[in-house]
């Protein structure tokens, strides 16, 4: 990989990492998926920028799966698609959870309005 390639990869990783963090913050991506994706990105960048790891990965991948350089574009597209699918899955899961919670609250017997069920603030019930 060229020096420019390394810079582009780190920038792209930072961009995608930022997107993932923002999705998690807004509750649009489950944090567990986010951890896996972020770990994957850190691992890929780590392998790409550490010369020893890069050479090892090169040697292994070249022998097992000799590929055109353009395959990187395909892999990047797959990663983005993967993030998008997990994002949609998280949104769906969040909606199901919200519906389940609402249903649970509505099906719980209602409280009578104005019923004073609590303690006076300065009174101990044992007294």
């Amino acid at each position, binding site marked *: 990989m060229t020096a420019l390639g390394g810079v582009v990869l780190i920038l792209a990783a930072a961009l995608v990492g930022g997107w993932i*963090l923002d999705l*998690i*913050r807004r*509750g649009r991506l489950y*944090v*567990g998926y*986010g*951890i896996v994706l*972020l770990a994957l990105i850190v691992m890929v960048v780590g392998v790409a920028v550490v010369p020893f790891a890069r050479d090892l990965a090169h040697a292994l991948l070249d022998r097992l799966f000799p590929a055109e350089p353009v395959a990187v574009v395909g892999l990047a597209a797959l990663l983005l698609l993967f993030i998008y699918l997990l994002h949609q899955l998280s949104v769906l899961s*969040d909606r199901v*959870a919200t519906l*389940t*919670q609402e*249903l*649970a*609250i509505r*099906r*719980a*017997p*209602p*409280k009578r309005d104005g019923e*004073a*069920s*609590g*303690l*006076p*603030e*300065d*009174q*101990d*019930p*044992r007294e």
Partner: protein
Amino acid sequence: MTAKAARVLVAVPAFNEAVTIAEVVTRVRRSLPGFDLLVINDGSTDRTQEILDDLGVETAHHLCNLGYGRAIQTAIKYAAHHRYDVLITLDADGQHAPEQVLALFHEFQASGHHCLVGSRFVEGRDYGAAPFDRKLGMLLFSWLTWIFAGKRIYDTTSGLKAIRAAVFEPLARWHFVDFHAEAIVYLSRLGFKVGEFPITVAERRAGVSMYSPFKALVYPLKTALMVLLAVAHARYSRPGAA
């Protein structure tokens, strides 16, 4: 002086706690007669629901298991919906003594905290005989609250908490892992007062901890990440923030 009645809800999230739930309910009813009780049955597949029906306990029943954090969120939404002044959460495994809740509640009312955590470690300020991995996790979360909330909370994973109505809305609005360190940091960053009150807990007698070996590995990562995001999110959530 006429005291204004504080409506208090004691919420007990339960998932497959058939062995202990009846005793917990009985002890809560006996120790806290002036408080309302709600059990959140988080999609239990054992006899938990049957036992709750027999006991005639008010139950919010999740049709499927959503996890501890969601069960706590259901309790918060329920408390907000029914206009409670205070929500007290308590574990269903019998580790928390309902008899200690009253002392926590009185301290909560007197101190003006928005969230008061029942803490096993605040008095001794060390984690004693806890297993090494747990100790490491609790130290990490405790330091995270120190760094990001400006106050060290020793027992961030405690399930015994008193929560004031003022923080129902922010807690129901955002998503938390288990309402532990990330919720403490989030509330503190929003300017709410969070503190600890010393309690003791009993050994778990039945059921399994919600932290399996795999979860014990992933949970600290998830919580640490959520703590960082809570700091960022609190900036957006503050009143007057864009």
